[in-house]
C-alpha cells in the first residue's frame, strides 16, 4: 500500500506531468469560461494532444482540464447569466441575481471553493468505492456485463431532459454507428459499403469532436453573439467562504453525496448533478422563498455536486469501461490508447497508476483554488475575445486534431459528418449524449450480448439465472419501464384530481 503510494508519487512528479497538468488547467479554465464551449468539448479537443504524452501525463491533462472547465463555467454564468458549460446552467440565474445585488465575489468564490471541496469528495468516493467494487466485478461473466452495459445505456436515456423515446432512439443510432467495420463476431465487413476507410470502424473520438465541437460552431453561425462583459473590480474572493462552509455544511455534504451518486450512475453527468442538487436544495431549504433572488445556498449545494460527479464518474469507467458521463467516455478512449484497459484487474496490476489518478484529481482540485481566483480576475479580458476569433481556431483544432488521431483524412470527414448529425439531432430534441454513449459502448455491448447468446445456446434463461445478473436485469428493465410508469401516473393523476374537485 505504502509502496504503491510512493510509486504513484514518483509517477506524477516528473516535469512532463507537472507541465501537462498546469497547461491543461489553464486551457480548461479558458475554454470552460467561454460561453458555448463546454467541458466535454474542451476534453474532446485535448485528446489528439494526449497521443503524444506518456500515459500518466495524458490522464493528467484530462483530469485537470475537465475539473477546471466545470468550475469555470460558473464565471460567465454569474457575470453574464450565460452558463459557460451546461453544468452551470442550473444555477446561472441565481448567481447572476447575486451579481446584481453586488455579491459577485461571494457567488464566484462559492463557485471556486465548493467546486474544489466537491471535487475532493468525489475523489474520496472513487478511492473508497472502486476497490471493493473491483472485487465483486472480478466474478462477473458476460451476462453481468451485458446487463450492466444495458443499465448504463438506460440510465443515459432516463436522465436526458428530453423525451425518453427520442433518447432511446439516439442510443440506438449510436449502437448502429458502432456496428460499422470488421470488428464484429464474424470478422466480416459490416455496413462498410465497400469503403476501405470504414473497415476499421468509426472512431469514437472524431465522432465526439464532431458532435460537441463542430455542431457548436454550426449553432454559433445562427445565434447572435453574447453581450460583452462589463468590466468590474473584484474585492476579496475567498472572504466569507469559510463562514458559508460552516453555515451550509449539511447542504454541502448533501450536494457532494448526490453528485457522487449521479456521477457513478452511467450516463448521468455533471449537468444532471447540478440540476438535481439545486432542486433538492430549494426543496429542503429553510428559506425557499429566497431562491432565485440571489441566495447562495443553492449555489453551494449545486457547485459541490457537479464537481463531485466528475471524479465519481470515473468509477464505472475504470471498473467496467462503462462511462459515467460524456467526459468519462472520452477518458475511456484515452485509457485504452495508453494500455490502461479498464477492468477490475486494473486495480491489482496497475495499482500505482490508479493511485496516481487519485493523486492527480486531488492536486487538480487544490490547484483549482489559486488558478480559479486568478481566472476570475482576468475573466473580463478573456471574455472580450469575440466569437469570430475563437470559433475559427476551434475549427482548425477540429481539423488538425481529427487528422492526428489516425494520420488520415478520413478522420476529418468523420468530424464533419458527426457535426451535421449532432446539430440536426440537438435541434430536434434528440439528446446527443445518449448517442455518444451508444458509440462508445457499442462494441462492448455487442460482444457481451453475442458471447452470452453463444454460451446459452440461444436460450434467454441463463441471462437471469445468476443472482447478480438477475438483479442487474431487474434494474435495467425497471429503467426501461420507468418512463412508461411516469406516463401512466401522469394520465391517472389529472383524472383523480378532477374526480376530487367534482365531488
Amino acid at each position, binding site marked *: 500500500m505504502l509502496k504503491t503510494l510512493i510509486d504513484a508519487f514518483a509517477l506524477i512528479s516528473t516535469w512532463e506531468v507537472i507541465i501537462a497538468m498546469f497547461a491543461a488547467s489553464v486551457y480548461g479554465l479558458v475554454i470552460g469560461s467561454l460561453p458555448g464551449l463546454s467541458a466535454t468539448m474542451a476534453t474532446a479537443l485535448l485528446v489528439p494532444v494526449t497521443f503524444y504524452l506518456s500515459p500518466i501525463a495524458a490522464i493528467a491533462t484530462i483530469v485537470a482540464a475537465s475539473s477546471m472547465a466545470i468550475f469555470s463555467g460558473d464565471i460567465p454564468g454569474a457575470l453574464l447569466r450565460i452558463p459557460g458549460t451546461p453544468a452551470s446552467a442550473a444555477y446561472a440565474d441565481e448567481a447572476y441575481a447575486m451579481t446584481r445585488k453586488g455579491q459577485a465575489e461571494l457567488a464566484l468564490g462559492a463557485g471556486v471553493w465548493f467546486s474544489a471541496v466537491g471535487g475532493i469528495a468525489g475523489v474520496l468516493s472513487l478511492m473508497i468505492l472502486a476497490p471493493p467494487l473491483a472485487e465483486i466485478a472480478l466474478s462477473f461473466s458476460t451476462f453481468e456485463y451485458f446487463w450492466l452495459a444495458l443499465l448504463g445505456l438506460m440510465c443515459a436515456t432516463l436522465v436526458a431532459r428530453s423525451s425518453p423515446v427520442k433518447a432511446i432512439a439516439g442510443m440506438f443510432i449510436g449502437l448502429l454507428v458502432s456496428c460499422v467495420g470488421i470488428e464484429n463476431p*464474424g470478422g466480416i465487413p*459490416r455496413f462498410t459499403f465497400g469503403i476501405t476507410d470504414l473497415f476499421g470502424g468509426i472512431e469514437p473520438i472524431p465522432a465526439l469532436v464532431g458532435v460537441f465541437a463542430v455542431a457548436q460552431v454550426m449553432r454559433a453561425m445562427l445565434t447572435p453573439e453574447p453581450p460583452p462583459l462589463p468590466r468590474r473590480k473584484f474585492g476579496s474572493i475567498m472572504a466569507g467562504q469559510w463562514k458559508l462552509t460552516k453555515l451550509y455544511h449539511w447542504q454541502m455534504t448533501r450536494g457532494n453525496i448526490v453528485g457522487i451518486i449521479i456521477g457513478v450512475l452511467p450516463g448521468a453527468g455533471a449537468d444532471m448533478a447540478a440540476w438535481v442538487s439545486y432542486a433538492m436544495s430549494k426543496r429542503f431549504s429553510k428559506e425557499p422563498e429566497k431562491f432565485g433572488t440571489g441566495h447562495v445556498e443553492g449555489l453551494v449545494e449545486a457547485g459541490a455536486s457537479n464537481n463531485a460527479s466528475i471524479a465519481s464518474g470515473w468509477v464505472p469507467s475504470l471498473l467496467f469501461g462503462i462511462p459515467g458521463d460524456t467526459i468519462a467516455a472520452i477518458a475511456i478512449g484515452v485509457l485504452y490508447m495508453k494500455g490502461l484497459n479498464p477492468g477490475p484487474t486494473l486495480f491489482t496490476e496497475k495499482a500505482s497508476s490508479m493511485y496516481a489518478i487519485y493523486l492527480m484529481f486531488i492536486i487538480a482540485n487544490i490547484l483549482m483554488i489559486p488558478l480559479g481566483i486568478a481566472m476570475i480576475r482576468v475573466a473580463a479580458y478573456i471574455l472580450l475575445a469575440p466569437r469570430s476569433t475563437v470559433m475559427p481556431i476551434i475549427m482548425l483544432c477540429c481539423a488538425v486534431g481529427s487528422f492526428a488521431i489516425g494520420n488520415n483524412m478520413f478522420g476529418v470527414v468523420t*468530424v464533419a459528418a458527426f457535426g451535421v448529425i449532432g446539430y440536426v439531432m440537438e435541434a430536434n430534441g434528440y439528446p446527443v449524449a445518449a448517442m455518444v454513449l451508444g458509440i462508445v459502448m457499442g462494441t462492448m455491448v455487442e460482444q457481451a450480448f*453475442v458471447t452470452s447468446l453463444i454460451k446459452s445456446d440461444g436460450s434467454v434463461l441463463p441471462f437471469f439465472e445468476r443472482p447478480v445478473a438477475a438483479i442487474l436485469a431487474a434494474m435495467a428493465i425497471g429503467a426501461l419501464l420507468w418512463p412508461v410508469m411516469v406516463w401512466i401516473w401522469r394520465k391517472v393523476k389529472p383524472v383523480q384530481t378532477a374526480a376530487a374537485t367534482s365531488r
Partner: protein
Amino acid sequence: MRLPDSVTGSFLVALGAAAAYGGWILPPVPGQPVGPNVFPLVIGCGLALCGLAIVFGIGHSFEEEEELIPFEDGQAASPPPQSKLYGLRALLPPALLLFYVLAADRLGFIITAAIMVYVTSTALGAKWKLALPLAALSPFAIHLIFGKLLRVPLPVGLLPTPW
C-alpha cells in the same frame, strides 16, 4: 433545422428497417447460431419501433421547450433575419472541413487553414481588419503546436513553414 416529429420519426423507421435488413443478409458464421447479424437486427428493430413511437407522438409530453433567456434592461437581441438561405449558414463549418480534406494535400496546411479561418471569422461577423491578421497568424500557431511540438505530419503543399 427544427423538423416535425413525423419526419424524423419516419426517417428513423427507414433507417432501422435498413439496418435490420442489412444485418439479415450478412453471412452467418458456419456452425454457429449467432453471428454478426444478430446485433444489427436487434438494433434495427429497436430503432424502427422508436421511430414509430415518435411518429405517433409518444413521449412528446416529456420534452421541455427550450427556454430563451430574455435580455434585461430592455436591450433585446435583434432577431436574426429569417430568410431561407440564412439557415444554410449552419452548413458552412462541415463544408469547410470537407474543403480541408480535398485541398490540404495540394495547397498545404498553411494556405488551406488560412482560408478556413478567414471564411469562418467573416461569417461570424468579423471585419477584414480582424479576420485577415487572424487568418495570417493562427495557422502558424496551430502548425507550431501540432506540426512541430506534437509531430503531426501536416501536409506541406505550396507554402513550406519556416521551421
